[in-house]
């Protein structure tokens, strides 16, 4: 069993699961650091996957499909942003409604375009970078050579610097922590909240595109709760990019362990519970306090 776990195939499996979690989770960090709760991540991922599939199918270009995936994610995020920031409606309910909407609309269009209520035709995947030392393990090579893996690592590291070391990050955090103070010093709360939510749309849209390319097709409801796991990782990671990514890696590790142990003596359902139990334990403060940004989820009403 130990040798199975420390194999390259296992590593590849873990990375395959971790990449979309991390991208979506980072999206959650940007959105919530700016003060907008984003339960719509699930729907953003789903629509991203759908648009990436459709874009790739009709142009034959996975790179164009990738852009479509980002655009699809942005679209759902933009609706969430308008409802949350402009209309100042309940952000949690908006997220739930958009998740429902994404499930409905993707299946609806799937049937119009492909006459199937369950899956799209096969699409090409992203080209991969050839890795000479993995020549004899093509599956692992395709995965580790996937440019999105490298991109995800870069985004994780960059996000840490953007959020904690740049003026943009400081402003984003200030509108999420104390919008009144930010407003007083002339920072546009509305603008920065839009940035946060829209960045989450780009990142979770990418996560969706990853899923579509990894599976070479779209299947209905293929986000399969990943948006919620990403939220969980964000909380376990205490709203920090590096923490969130580490939590995603932990969840990805547990999940590939579960796949590895399938049919074994330990019921897989208990491994499935790990991310959720971990979140509850962390939130309850048993392992250090994890506190949301001060104004997370609260619409900003400018004083008149």
């Amino acid at each position: 069993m130990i040798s199975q776990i420390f194999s390259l195939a296992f590593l590849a499996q873990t990375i395959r699961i971790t990449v979309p979690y991390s991208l979506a989770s980072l999206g959650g960090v940007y959105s919530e650091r700016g003060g907008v709760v984003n339960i719509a991540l699930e729907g953003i991922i789903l629509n991203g996957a759908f648009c990436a599939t459709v874009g790739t199918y009709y142009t034959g270009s996975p790179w164009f499909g990738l852009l479509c995936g980002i655009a699809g994610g942005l679209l759902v995020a933009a609706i969430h942003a308008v409802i949350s920031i402009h209309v100042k409606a309940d952000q949690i309910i908006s997220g739930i409604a958009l998740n429902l909407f994404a499930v409905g609309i993707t299946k609806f269009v799937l049937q119009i375009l492909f006459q199937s209520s369950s899956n799209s035709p096969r699409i090409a995947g992203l080209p991969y970078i050839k890795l000479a030392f993995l020549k004899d393990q093509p599956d692992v090579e395709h995965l580790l050579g996937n440019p999105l893996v490298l991109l995800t690592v870069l985004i994780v590291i960059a996000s840490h610097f953007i959020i904690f070391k740049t003026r943009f990050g400081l402003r984003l955090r200030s509108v999420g922590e104390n919008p009144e103070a930010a407003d007083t010093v002339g920072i546009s709360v509305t603008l920065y909240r839009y940035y946060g939510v829209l960045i989450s749309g780009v990142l979770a849209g990418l996560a969706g595109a990853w899923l579509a390319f990894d599976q070479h097709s779209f299947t209905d409801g293929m986000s399969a709760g990943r948006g919620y796991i990403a939220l969980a990782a964000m909380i376990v990671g205490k709203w920090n990019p590096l923490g969130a990514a580490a939590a995603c890696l932990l969840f990805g590790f547990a999940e590939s362990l579960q796949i590895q142990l399938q049919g074994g003596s330990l019921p897989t359902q208990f491994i499935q519970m790990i991310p959720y139990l971990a979140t509850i334990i962390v939130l309850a403060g048993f392992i250090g306090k994890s506190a949301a940004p001060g104004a997370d989820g609260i619409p900003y009403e400018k004083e008149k």
Partner: protein
Amino acid sequence: MADQTKRRHWLEHPATQNFLIPIFAVVLSFAVGAIFILIVGQNPFQVYSVLFSQTLGTSYGIGQLLFKTTPLIFAGLSVAICFKAGLFNIGAEGQLQIGAFMTALVGMYTVGVPAFLEIPLLILAGMIGGGIWGFIPGYLKAKTGAHEVINTIMLNFIAAALVSFFVTNLFNVPATVHTPEIAPTGKIPRFDTIFSSFSGSPVNFSILIAILAAVAVWYYVDKTRYGYELRVVGLNSKAAEYGGISVAKNIILSMTIGGAIAGLVGTNYVMGYKYYFEEGFSTGTGFMGIAVALLGNNNPFGVILAALLFGMLEYGGLVINTMVPKELVSILQAIVIIFVISSNKIFRKILVNFIKKRTLRVND
């Protein structure tokens, strides 16, 4: 000031608005839905007329509609009572899973108990199961401040994994993902055993339990001291604490009651329809409960009306599926929710402008 209050336009009255906003939202979402129908190349009027006539026009359709309505009433009441206490219960889905499973579990081990004991016993089992699943996030919120929204989402997944474990490993009929049948005395009769016109539709007398639950929630929240405390906590928890009302106690209590009500969903599916618990029996009923509570303005009787509408849409998706993809219905439901939460702000603004204009004209 006094002059203004005297001249308050009837449209400005909160009760009128609470009534008008959901209707406005529903009408608007049907209008948006019409665009989707046009995209598919169908006639919206035709599609909608089939939707209404096939659901409301036949007793079989009404039976199907009521069958879909019953769990939505439970889920809607569960969310609504928590809303009244200022809590957002996204966990009805997990609560109803655990509750329905408990009903089935107790039901399979209590063969031979007479019906007058068995039926209340199974109902109680469901309430206890759901109640425990509501108690956990309530307790965590009251004692550690952990947000109930995140915890209920997490508990939904844990509940799904837990019942999945039980019905694939421990309590299942071999090679299936459902439990054995419950004791025959625990079965709730279908309408068609008494009224033959409902023949074939799964609607059963658990809908009476749902209506009873709505009345009970109304009485509890509006007419008892406990309900008063719950509402005060929901409106202003600081004021409640000053007034000697324990916020912690009310948080735990309302989440537990909310969970117990969601746990009653098993009366419809387990006791009244399949007679066993099956993995994946609920397709998001708990989440739909949020929409139902919103549309019903957290009023128990509003919840019944909203559940009827959503029940009609859920069955309606199937009857229009030959004309447009049935997902049109999910899109409609999502848009209704978005319009309800948005129109609270937008609709009121439009109304105020409208009234202003009217008053100006009158004054001219």
